[in-house]
């Protein structure tokens, strides 16, 4: 005796529910069609009796479709799910597939290709004896590719990560082509493997696809894994305070060279740490730092005595160099320039001081 499956359609639009009921009537297996206009009602119906398929809208008041699907996936793992939405947003498609839905259809697309839609539904209803696992989001992409290749599959893996879409062509267990972010071949494959998360779906194989990858998939996976490990090492290195300090120094030296200054001495207030000097010898830097501190004290005393207001900057020169002393946030910056430097030195010094801690 043939089993009569039950389909539950969930949508907040009652007219649409009626229309859907009519559209599903021609299904060859003649399933029983039930409808619900709210997530709460749908969950109650699923609790009360067994259904084979849930067709769910996404945008609904109170409990939206994604929330319903999350509950359904946990409580009714055997239930087939189809999202039928009016939201033409790739992100929703990705999220729905990530939750393990069997199909995602746009309402407009469904109306245009009703026959195909019905065939898809019929196919889902017919998979009574289907075995296998769903929801393998905990596996990374390398595992999935290895599984496909080990089982000598022929398929096209469509991988989605947000708005990014990539494809891997596997033919008889061999990786033959990859496409991602506008590139093809091994470059695309390596790029795809750096994706940390996403969703995938198996599309029918394309045996006539031009082959661009000739290396064995295991070799490629190994190379990519090594590259990812190296990058991870570099990232770990970057979080090391010593390495960070070194990088900051290199950046500041490059800044100094870029603007053309000879040296910079940064002097914190007395008793608040050591001075920082770049572009000058240690001994000279100490003398400069001492003078900067003394000069700041003298200037402050003089400014206070004559009510001249705060110091904006000091500039001085001799035959060997030009100097600027600029106070900034509790510290004094002494910047030296060659005597030949002339154009807009004050502005350049101010910019250098402002970007010093960037």
């Amino acid at each position, binding site marked *: 005796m043939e089993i009569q499956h039950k389909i539950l359609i969930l949508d907040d639009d009652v007219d649409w529910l009626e229309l859907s009921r009519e559209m599903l009537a021609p299904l060859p297996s003649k399933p029983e069609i039930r409808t619900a206009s709210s997530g709460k009602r749908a969950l109650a119906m699923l609790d009360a009796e067994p259904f084979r398929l849930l067709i769910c809208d996404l945008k609904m008041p109170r409990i939206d479709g994604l929330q319903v699907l999350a509950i359904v996936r946990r409580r009714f793992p055997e239930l087939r799910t189809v999202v039928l939405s009016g939201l033409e947003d790739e992100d929703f498609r990705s999220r729905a597939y990530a939750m393990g839905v069997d199909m995602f259809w746009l309402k407009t697309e469904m109306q245009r290709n009703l026959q195909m839609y019905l065939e898809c539904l019929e196919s889902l209803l017919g998979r009574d004896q289907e075995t296998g696992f769903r929801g393998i989001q905990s596996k990374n992409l390398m595992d999935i590719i290895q599984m496909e290749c080990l089982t000598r599959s022929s398929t096209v893996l469509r991988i989605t990560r947000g708005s990014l879409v990539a494809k891997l062509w596997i033919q008889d267990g061999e990786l033959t082509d990859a496409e991602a972010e506008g590139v093809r071949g091994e470059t695309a494959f390596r790029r795809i493997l750096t994706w940390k998360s996403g969703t995938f779906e198996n599309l029918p194989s394309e045996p006539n696809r031009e082959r661009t990858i000739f290396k064995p998939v295991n070799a490629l996976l190994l190379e990519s894994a090594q590259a990812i490990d190296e990058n991870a090492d570099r990232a770990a290195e970057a979080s090391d305070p010593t390495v960070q300090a070194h990088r900051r120094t290199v950046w500041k030296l490059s800044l100094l060279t870029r603007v053309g200054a000879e040296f910079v001495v940064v002097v914190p207030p007395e008793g608040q740490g050591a001075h920082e000097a770049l572009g000058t010898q240690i001994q*000279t830097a100490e*003398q*400069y730092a*001492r*003078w900067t501190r*003394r*000069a700041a004290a*003298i*200037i402050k*005393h*003089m*400014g206070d*005595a*004559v*009510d*001249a*207001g*705060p*110091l*904006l*900057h*000091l*500039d*001085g*020169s*001799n*035959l*060997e*160099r030009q*100097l600027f002393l600029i106070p900034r946030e509790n510290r004094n910056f002494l910047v030296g320039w060659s005597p030949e430097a002339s154009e*807009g*030195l*004050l*502005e350049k010094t101010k910019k250098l001081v402002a970007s010093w801690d960037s």
Partner: protein
Amino acid sequence: MGLLRNIFGSRAAVTQLPSGSITVNRAGEIVSSTVSSAYPAELLHTVGKEVLALLREARSAQMPLAEVSIHFASLRITARELRGGAIIFLFPQTALSPAAN
């Protein structure tokens, strides 16, 4: 009436900023001045002494300065080293004063 005047005196204690130039010898004594005589001499003396100290400290830090300009919010002091002493120019700064550098 006039109670506050009796307590605080008839003049507000506001001193005009100095304008002009002074020359100080190596001992910090003012040799010549074009600054108004209304401006307190001890304040001019302080300016001269501090400028000399600034130049002296620069010398001892191995970076002798031939000329130095100190830009305060309302006063610019430019000093030129003069055989141990200095000639010092004082320019009050207003919104119409030319921008430095």
